[in-house]
């Protein structure tokens, strides 16, 4: 492998690190924060979740719980989308340079 391609690989790998951080860190926050927020309300202020809404047959807790389930799925979907769009092209370039 030439010095030029080693340099190129190093550059691509650091790009990959940066891109991955930009994708993963916000999504980790979007996973951990709402979850511990949810658990936190149950532990510290459960009355907040008992408030009824609408015609009195649903509570805030149940609605937020369902939204959280949907949100968790959307986080995985978003990651998959961003990984394919932002990370895979760099990885492909890296592998190509590596095998040159």
């Amino acid at each position, binding site marked *: 492998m030439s010095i030029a391609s080693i340099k190129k690989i190093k550059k691509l790998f650091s790009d990959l690190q940066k891109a991955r951080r930009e994708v993963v860190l916000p999504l*980790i926050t979007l*996973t951990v924060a709402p*979850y511990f927020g949810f*658990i*936190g309300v149950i532990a510290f202020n459960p009355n907040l979740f008992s408030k009824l809404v609408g015609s009195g047959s649903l509570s805030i807790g149940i609605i937020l719980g369902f939204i959280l389930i*949907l949100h*968790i799925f959307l986080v995985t979907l978003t990651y998959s989308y961003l990984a394919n769009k932002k990370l895979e092209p760099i990885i492909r370039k890296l592998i190509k340079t590596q095998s040159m």
Partner: protein
Amino acid sequence: MGLNITAILMFVLFVGITIYITYWAAKKTQTAKSFYTAGGDITGFQNGLAISGDFMSAASFLGISGLVYLTGFDGLIYSIGFLIGWPIILLLIAEPLRNLGKYSFADVASFRLQQKPIRLLAACGSLCTVILYLIAQMVGAGKLVELLFGLPYYSAVMIVGALMILYVTFGGMLATTWVQIIKAILLLSGATLIAVLVLIQFSFNVNDFFKAAINIHPKGVNILAPGGLISDPISAISLGLALMFGTAGLPHILMRFFTVKDAVEARKSVVYATGFIGYFYILTFIIGFGAIILVSKNTQYLNELGQLIGNNNMAAIHLAHAVGGDLLLGFISAVAFATILAVVSGLTLAGASAISHDLYANVFSGATFSEKKEMQVSKIATVFLGLLAILLGITFEGQNVAFMVGLAFAIAASTNFPILLLSIYWKKLTTRGAVIGGSAGLISAIVLVVLGPVVWVDVFNYEEAIFPYKYPALFSMTLTFMGIWFFSVTDKSKYAHLEQAKFDAQFFRSQTGVGIDKSLNH
């Protein structure tokens, strides 16, 4: 309930199909690679179904719908907790795991660390998790089959044990995966059917549906609010941690990532699995509330004391009868039995691989190693674990095993997950740190559960628990991470330098997949 003919016929049909699959899989399962990873060419979608099948055990189907039936909102706390581990697996673990490993998560943990001590620890962590989970499943299976099929407890445990030995020994991961996929489809369809048949009675009007439940349930409007499941902040955080990170340390789940060809498919698997599992938990919630409305006041399903026949975990089963008669009851009973069978098979395979791949091949065999022998050991280990599961299932009949799945999660979160995570991302990790910290987590999780309310009070019947909290993860995980950190950074041995020096190359591979163990390079 007496002998249930529909249930038995449907179950026999399921067994027939799965035995045929095992026969087909056995012809393809000739190498260690195919035994552990189904040949490595399962697609992301199939693996997503299989993973969700592993996760949707009878315990979570019957247990969570039973919890919702009993407490309403609190059931949702568990559902969300079981689901929240999936983004964590996806964002941090899935791709590096696939890029670095071959058959088990210990491959990753020991990638740059010393093989023997790390494999030994990882195998202990895996086997503890697997055996605790197995006991809980076997006892559940025995009770369920006794009730649904009218068969004696011990014969149910033996049928489950025998079938699982058959699937795993002959069909390996390929049979186990397809049994799991079929079961996942059956369970998702069955649960959907019950939920639809319930909601149709309310013309799909959610307000009317919940209103009916509030009017019937003795707790009234309080079923929509947090109840007594989590009473103090420490328990809340501790349970939250165990559920969140425990999933990422379950060996039978982690093993599934080696059945797909690369990191891209591993990623897809998690997205599909999260979708299926999330959908399934929404169904269990509807089923639990449906049972409040249609089962809790129907004397057909209650004993003299006004409680559900069987116990609260039978809520979903009774509801199936209430909305779909004997036919749906038979179908759901058969699905529940199939579920247990599929889950114990996956667990046994993960346990067997810890024995044959981690302990035999990489710790004890030394110069006598050959792949053929590793295969033999894996099959012997399967039979051994199967017999052990039967024995433990019979031993623990009538015992309170509710704490076992919780303990399995605590161990997975306190031992397997930290070593895996830090071996992938933390350069300074050394063998000494991993072994001391990981062992501390394993021992403390077990000790704190034994001294806590769920064993000390509920099983040993002492007045007061020595350790006041039900969930140890907050304490045991802290101990693990502190131990790993301290004994790694103070490790000045020559091994430590070598291990740290190997990190960059490992990290490169974990992030890019260059050098990945492919399905064909054998």
